[in-house]
């Protein structure tokens, strides 16, 4: 997507922008920062001040010309309404000036001066940092509801696109000296860029992703801050408000950040895995970013295989209870993680893991059951299981048996029988033992339920003897002796 529009841009960029082609609109006297605040934006049609010449005058330095162009680009236009001036020449000019700046930064051989860098960053801030409008409420008609998932396209993209292009060139360009730029591309600038990732416009998020990636690469000094800020975004998303548009993009950037982590992993990075990435499995929108999340997580395990146990326990903690779609995604991720899991780690978590898998096998959603059964098709997973079948078979046998008897779906039934057969071939004796135990327990089930009921009834009756104190301290006489004498025989 990004490359696509760069191509488009350079094709369109006018050749002779700096060549004194006449007047460029300069901003009116009103300070640019006040635009976009509550209400009125500058309407180019209403107040058109005389347009000074931006470039071409004798004696102007390169810096002067550049700064004047940047100033032009600090004027904001209101794209939100279809008011007059939709295709105003000023608007068109701003885009052209922006494109000339893109060329300028791209082609520059001398480093940009500090004034140029500062002006550029200021211009980025003015153009990019804005408050997103509220989500459109669905109207009374049913039509609006259907469009709910459609992406929103920012009408001011016409300018934003080129600003982002310039920002990217700026960040990548060798003529921008990191030492100078760092003063302006500071933590607060980066933090506001990160805020923009919540944009509804997928094009904008895509640009931001690339920009952030480059910033992380170039501005080494800001890396710890970026990692912290991203963690904060994730914490908030997980524990507070459950809505953020840009998690997938953030994770995509972090996928490559993580793959660059040095081995052995620092404690800070492991904390990021445990406290930020793993909890990201909880939100209901996990489907929006799961592939990126899984990638990040497998990168971690790649670096340090011991982490797979942590990840598996995390998955079990957030395992969905009612959402079958999510459950299938979890099974998918589980398989990927298991692929990378080594025997010692596997053995540490296989008991709770296969209790969960047993649940999935019995799911009445046939795709969930099927997906769980397919774990046996994976060579590595099969190997892990077969070498621990003494532990695993007793856990999942009841699930297999129940499927074999009751599952409504033919294909689940067939695959269940295959898995059973695999275990049979592995260890016939154990399978038969499990079968026997299952039958015994089944017979005893009603009995044990009855027993549970009796125990509680018993407790209840016993509890009724004891007075509960409000203020009077009433201490129970019995200390060590069993509280309840058996009454049932």
């Amino acid at each position: 997507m990004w490359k696509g529009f760069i191509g488009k841009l350079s094709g369109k960029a006018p050749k002779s922008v700096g060549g004194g082609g006449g007047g460029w609109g300069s901003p009116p006297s009103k300070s640019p920062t006040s635009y976009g605040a509550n209400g009125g934006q500058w309407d180019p049609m209403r107040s058109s001040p005389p347009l000074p010449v931006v470039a071409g005058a004798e004696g102007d330095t390169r810096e002067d010309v550049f700064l004047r162009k940047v100033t032009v680009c600090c004027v904001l236009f209101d794209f939100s309404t279809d008011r007059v001036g939709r295709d105003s020449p000023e608007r068109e000019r701003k885009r052209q000036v922006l494109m000339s700046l893109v060329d300028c930064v791209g082609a520059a051989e001398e480093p940009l001066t500090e004034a140029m860098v500062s002006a550029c960053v200021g211009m980025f801030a003015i153009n990019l940092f804005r408050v997103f409008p509220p989500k459109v409420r669905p109207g009374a008609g049913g039509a609006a509801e259907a469009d709910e998932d459609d992406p929103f396209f920012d009408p001011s993209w016409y300018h934003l696109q080129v600003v982002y292009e310039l920002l990217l060139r700026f960040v990548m360009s060798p003529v921008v000296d990191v030492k100078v730029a760092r003063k302006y591309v500071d933590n607060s600038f980066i933090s506001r860029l990160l805020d923009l990732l919540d944009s509804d416009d997928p094009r904008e998020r895509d640009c931001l992703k690339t920009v952030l990636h480059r910033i992380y690469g170039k501005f080494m000094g800001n890396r710890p801050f970026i990692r912290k800020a991203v963690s904060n975004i994730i914490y908030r998303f997980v524990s507070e408000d459950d809505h953020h548009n840009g998690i997938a993009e953030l994770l995509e950037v972090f996928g490559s950040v993580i793959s660059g982590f040095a081995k052995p992993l620092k404690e800070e990075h492991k904390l990021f895995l445990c406290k930020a990435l793993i909890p990201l499995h909880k939100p209901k929108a996990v489907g929006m970013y799961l592939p990126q999340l899984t990638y990040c997580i497998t990168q971690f395990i790649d670096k340090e295989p011991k982490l797979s146990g942590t990840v598996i326990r995390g998955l079990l903690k957030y395992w969905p209870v009612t959402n079958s779609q999510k459950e299938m995604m979890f099974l998918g991720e589980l398989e990927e993680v298991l692929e990378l899991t080594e025997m010692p780690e596997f053995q540490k978590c296989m008991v709770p893991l296969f209790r969960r898998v047993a649940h999935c096998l019995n799911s009445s959603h046939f795709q969930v059951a099927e997906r769980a059964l397919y774990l046996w098709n994976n060579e590595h997973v099969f190997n892990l299981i077969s070498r621990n079948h003494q532990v695993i078979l007793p856990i999942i046998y009841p699930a297999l048996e129940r499927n074999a008897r009751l599952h409504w779906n033919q294909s689940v039934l067939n695959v269940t029988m295959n898995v059973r057969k695999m275990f049979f071939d592995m260890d016939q004796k154990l399978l038969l033992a499990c079968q026997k135990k299952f039958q015994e327990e089944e017979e005893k089930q009603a009995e044990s339920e009855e027993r549970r009921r009796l125990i509680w009834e018993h407790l209840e009756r016993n509890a009724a003897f004891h007075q509960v104190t409000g203020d009077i301290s009433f201490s129970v006489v019995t200390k060590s002796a069993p509280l309840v004498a058996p009454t049932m025989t």
Partner: protein
Amino acid sequence: MATVDEPLYPIAVLIDELKNEDIQLRLNSIRRLSTIARALGEERTRKELIPFLSENNDDEDEVLLAMAEELGVFIPYVGGVEHAHVLLPPLETLSTVEETCVRDKAVESLCRIGAQMKENDIVDFFIPVVKRLASGEWFTARVSSCGLFHIAYPSATDPLKTELRTIYGQLCQDDMPMVRRAAASNLGKFAATIEQSHLKTEIMSIFDDLTQDDQDSVRLLAVEGCAALGKLLEPQDCVAHILPVIVNFSQDKSWRVRYMVANQLYELCEAVGPEPTRADLVPAYVRLLRDNEAEVRIAAAGKVTKFCRILSPQLAIQHILPCVKELSSDSSQHVRSALASVIMGMAPVLGKDATIEQLLPIFLSLLKDEFPDVRLNIISKLDQVNQVIGIDLLSQSLLPAIVELAEDRHWRVRLAIIEYIPLLASQLGVGFFDDKLGALCMQWLEDKVYSIREAAANNLKRLAEEFGPEWAMQHIIPQVLEKINNPHYLYRMTILQAISFLAPVMGAEITCQKLLPVVINSSKDRVPNIKFNVAKVLQSLVPILDQSVVEKTVKPCLVELSEDPDVDVRYYANQALQACDQIMMSS
């Protein structure tokens, strides 16, 4: 039969249950913690059960949530208030877990317990918990601590109070925005417990910092605290400290901040007094009513009545009313709807003349709004206007509006108007009702949507209650009973339902003479669904009817139904017969 042949150890039972694989069983046992505690007795609860719970908190969040909730009401089981502190350690641990729901519940329970603890126990046990959480390594502990200060502070000694204020100040500047947000949103509660002198200095400086936080989300929560803080301060301090902040926020570039301001501006008016209200808050509010962003206008419009109640009528008429007029034709339906839901309340504020002259045209135009919610909102608050100007001025426009809503193509709209029919009936009186609305009420019984038919049946009952059985005998019963011959069984079912609703209101005699025969007759229906509904209705009629009637009429009919070929009919008939017997026995 199962046997319990070994002695019962309550803790062992709990441990056993908590080990179970089935989360439902674990949940059940936590839900019955109080039983275990009572069986153990107070001392062993303190010495064995609570420590056990403190150590066993790595279960699933759902179980932890239940535990956090149970512990909040556990004081009686540990031996009363003087032992309440033993409950703090498990809750302290639960306040640090990752899941927000669990933490919130643990904090709630801690507050509940702390509120009952004696002053010196607070100093000895509760405040140390707060301090430990506030210096917790992970942000979850620090977030939880923010919600405990208002409980701890009043009982603290002076040096401790100073310390607590300092700690809170640090939490407001915490490195993590999560903590700052928690501190910001709890600031109002905490401030309410603090002495005036400190309020003006320390708390206001904390507040100022929060309002300038570089995270939008933190500032937003600080705005939420504005009104709460404003009410705590003396009016002149409020004018000096809060007013400039809120006026500034009302022009913030973030619409969310302006939205917050719009929501609570009226609360500040009381705090600052009339003069600053007129000079600063009214202009700010007017700006919000005309905000560019519809969301902000929705919030502002929704508060228009509350705001006007605080102002003098002249100010309201002069400044607010012109905006209200504009809003009544706002381009956003949600703005108009928000306005319509409160505007009727302005009538008592403005008085009769101003209402007739200024508000009535707005009511009428909103009653003709193209968006049904707007019309419904007006109708729902009719009583407020009725008190001021009487209904006559409105009734002419009202009828077409009601009829149109009654036939709206969205069933939710129809449902909403049915809900208001009893209100309308009481306001409009019997005469108007008989002429215009009676037919509608009958028409709804044959709506295509079940919920509407059900609501229509219920509506008849409420009307009968409003106008009395005699009126109902004339205007409802005959029309309803006539419909029992409808060819469609679903409509016949609605009538049965209406009968069961109406019977208690109409009393034994009418039920026996008019309603019962219709029900009995329906037991011969060809559709099984009708037949088992007859059984259900008969069951509901038994308490109303005379015993002799039950014996002579109801029971034979049920017996017959209990031999029906359809299994469901037999089932419900038997249920009803059992109920009959029970009622007979008890009487």
